[in-house]
């Protein structure tokens, strides 16, 4: 049985993306895509507040460890000289992996839109693996810092560092869960070109998470 006339059909405006949108939209952009960009805009303010605090407290820690300079740390009950705690090589590699994961997911989306299932599954799988690697790198880094005497509450640097990178990492983790769900759907053939919007939206979120790291990496790791 056909629908009664939807008098609210936009007179023109080809619907972009998938059939998931039952109703045409005023802008021609699917509502979920607009919603995700709105969320991204809001998240910019969230990370800005965390980054501001990191910068405001930079150099104001009362005790070490410090990111790039030597300092005095409380270790084993005594104040001792301690080394700068940031180690560039691993985090640089993780940064590169996260950057490449954005490339992978763009390819996965291309595959989804063109109906190339192998391309979709392969590159989406690669994205998930890259994301897991990044999270793993962070977990390793945090554990390593902890063993070197920097816990969450050790000093202002540690608290602001762990809060900022921790929230970023949890955003990555949420993204990995989301993408893994989509990967399972893709393997089951539930992401045909008509439903590629689902992946497009997840990909936008994923790129945003990458973009936040593009800001965090120099600010935290590369600025003395």
């Amino acid at each position: 049985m056909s629908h009664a006339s939807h008098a609210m059909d936009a007179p023109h405006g080809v619907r972009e993306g998938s059939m998931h949108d039952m109703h045409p939209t005023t802008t021609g952009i699917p509502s979920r895509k607009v919603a995700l960009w709105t969320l991204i805009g809001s998240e910019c303010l969230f990370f800005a507040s965390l980054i501001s605090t990191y910068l405001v407290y930079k150099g104001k820690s009362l005790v070490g460890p410090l990111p790039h300079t030597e300092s005095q740390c409380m270790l084993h009950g005594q104040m001792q000289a301690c080394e700068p705690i940031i180690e560039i090589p691993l985090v640089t590699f993780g940064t590169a992996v996260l950057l490449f994961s954005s490339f992978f997911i763009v390819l996965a989306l291309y595959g989804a839109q063109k109906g190339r299932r192998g391309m979709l599954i392969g590159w989406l799988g690669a994205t998930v693996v890259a994301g897991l690697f990044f999270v793993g790198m962070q977990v390793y880094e945090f554990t390593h810092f902890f063993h070197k005497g920097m816990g969450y509450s050790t000093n202002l640097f540690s608290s602001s560092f762990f809060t900022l990178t921790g929230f970023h990492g949890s955003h990555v983790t949420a993204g990995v869960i989301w993408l893994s769900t989509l990967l399972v759907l893709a393997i089951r053939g539930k992401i045909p070109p008509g439903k590629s919007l689902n992946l497009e939206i997840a990909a936008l979120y994923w790129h945003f998470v990458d973009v936040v790291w593009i800001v965090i990496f120099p600010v935290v790791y590369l600025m003395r």
Partner: protein
Amino acid sequence: MDAHAHDSQAPGAQHAHPTPGLYARIALILFVLTALEVMVFEIAGGHFITSLQSVVAPVAVLILLVLSAAKFALVAMFYMHLKQDPRLLSNLFVFPIIIAAVIIISLVVLFSYWRKVGAL
């Protein structure tokens, strides 16, 4: 913001429709920019090409901001498709970024520890 057609059938000039090849080139540029960032850090710290340290160190922060802004723009415009997408979506991103930048700069200035107490 009235309804407008986004023509998804346009034959792909690279500007109208990115190809995997373009995406790959962007990935490479991102990688190179990241390597440059690390290089700036190491030079400024005197661990690499020490002769350049005195030149680079004072402007290291500026160079890093420019490099990261470039990476940001590349991911946003190409991977996030903003270059081809309706302007509304770019605005949804840019406007909050401006407010965010204002807040970061304001807080840093208000708390800058080189100020004498009460002198700002």
